[in-house]
């Protein structure tokens, strides 16, 4: 394992310190327990948004803390949901009196720890709602699984719900917007290589030089199936198909197309993926009116990408375009 780290046990601490040092105008980090909050929190009278989860997905979530998006991020150990304590402390730190929405990716650990935190925060008279992001069509949503995973679509939920909070929506309304985004976004990923978790020291899985893993998650969990490497255009078709199967879109409908890098894939490749995905949507008359391309929800140094399609409407477009000022996503200010 070759990484620019010191003791594997200190990876998250040191990265959070570095993050806070690099962006003092945007965020403040709490060291014990670890969380990152907006420098100007609490913002009185506005709904606060908190997300969190295992580390290793940077810039998610700390990179999205700031005006127009998250109020706080709670990073757990690498690929491990945070415990309730830091979530509760973050909740207290950012509640501006209008309540707090937890945006939780659908993993058993995240759900359970945020659940406990919500109980504890409510006991301190903070109004808390939780919403679960589960956009990953690679996983069959049935009685027989833990349900779909929350993957790259989380960024879209955080951005758009953040804009709703910023415009002054109340807690129910912000929650409804977040749920709406989640109900209209689908994602599917592919891995070319496996990530190596620092404390594990070995790659999470092994792929030969000619294999790729389709339907990968963001934790180095194995995916849906392993197939032989194909040209990018063919692989893109394999990712887009299950998305459109699960969320049929009519010709003329508007979408945001999000090509997300898993951390180790160069931008050139992401744009090659974007090109083909946009072409497939165009062939069906679907209108890509907004786009996002880059490494936003990563899996350490994993090579690969995911494609997310968000079915837009006028409200979502307006909220997407609203100003945002975070380390990793910024426009309009």
């Amino acid at each position, binding site marked *: 394992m070759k990484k620019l780290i010191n003791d594997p046990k200190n990876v998250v601490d040191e990265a959070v310190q570095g993050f806070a040092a690099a962006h003092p105008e945007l965020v403040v980090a709490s060291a014990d327990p670890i969380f990152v909050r907006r420098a100007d929190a609490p913002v009185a009278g506005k709904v606060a948004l908190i997300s969190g989860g295992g580390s290793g997905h940077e810039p998610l979530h700390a990179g999205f803390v700031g005006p127009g998006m998250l109020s706080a991020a709670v990073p757990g150990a690498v*690929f491990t949901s945070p*415990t309730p304590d830091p979530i509760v402390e973050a909740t207290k730190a950012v509640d501006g009196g209008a309540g707090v929405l937890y945006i939780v990716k659908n993993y058993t650990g995240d759900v359970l720890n945020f659940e406990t935190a919500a109980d504890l925060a409510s006991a301190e008279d903070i109004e808390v709602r939780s919403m679960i992001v589960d956009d990953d069509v690679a996983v*069959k949503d049935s009685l027989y*699984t833990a349900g779909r995973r929350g993957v790259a679509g989380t960024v879209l939920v955080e951005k758009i719900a953040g804009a709703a909070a910023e415009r002054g929506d109340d807690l129910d309304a912000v929650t409804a917007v977040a749920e709406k985004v989640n109900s209209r976004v689908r994602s599917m990923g592919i891995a070319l290589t496996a990530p190596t978790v620092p404390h594990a020291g070995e790659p999470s899985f092994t792929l030969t030089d000619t294999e790729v893993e389709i339907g990968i*998650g963001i*934790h180095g969990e194995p995916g849906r199936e392993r197939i032989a490497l194909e040209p990018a255009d063919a692989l893109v078709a394999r990712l887009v198909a299950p998305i459109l199967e699960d969320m049929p879109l009519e010709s003329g409908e508007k979408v945001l197309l999000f090509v997300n890098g898993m951390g180790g894939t160069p931008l050139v490749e992401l744009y090659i993926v974007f090109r083909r995905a946009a072409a497939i949507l165009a062939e069906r008359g679907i209108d890509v009116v907004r786009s996002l391309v880059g490494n936003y929800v990563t899996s350490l140094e994993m090579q690969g990408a995911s494609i997310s399609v968000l079915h837009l409407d006028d409200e979502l477009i307006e909220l997407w375009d609203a100003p945002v000022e975070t380390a990793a996503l910024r426009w309009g200010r």
Partner: protein
Amino acid sequence: MGLGIAWAKAWMTESARIVSEHRGELITLDREIGDGDHGENMDRGFSAVLGKLDGLPADASPGDALKLVATTLISTVGGASGPLFGTAFLKGSQAVAGKEELTADDVVAFLTAARDGIVSRGKAETGDKTMIDAWTPAVDAAAAAAGEGRSEPEVLEAAADAAERGAADTEPLVARKGRASYLGERAVGHRDPGAQSTALLLRAAAVSAAS
């Protein structure tokens, strides 16, 4: 003579040791069908538990110790296993609250409450390929042993034996809860890491009672 505070402390000391010893094995199991952190999570949690044991008041009961274990696990482990094992120890400790020494029936009450706590949080059923598949056989075996009038160490040994078999029996299963459920058929042939760590913890309990 039941199981007192000395046993509870010995159990936790042995748990920390056994979890640390099997850290790599649990990571490997979790890497195969999960995300590779279970050994690290458990190791972090039980080292923290170890560091807290000395802080227990001199007159602490086993239930007090086990409650401390619960809150420590909840606040240090994270992931799915943190809240689940945390709830298990919390509910289990409540079932034996106030007792100076645990009888065989108390052991059964502890295990039952622990298992039920996990089920109520995680909603897993038997055969879902989770830690429940180690806990439930352990509860059943402990109840049977206690019903036969066995001693506390024997009851715990029965529980540990059954948990180990239960963990092994998760191998052919398709997972329906936790990360392994994403894998469908591909989880078949792999042992559930949480079931395995459950077996390790119950073995630690038995070993500590026997010595």
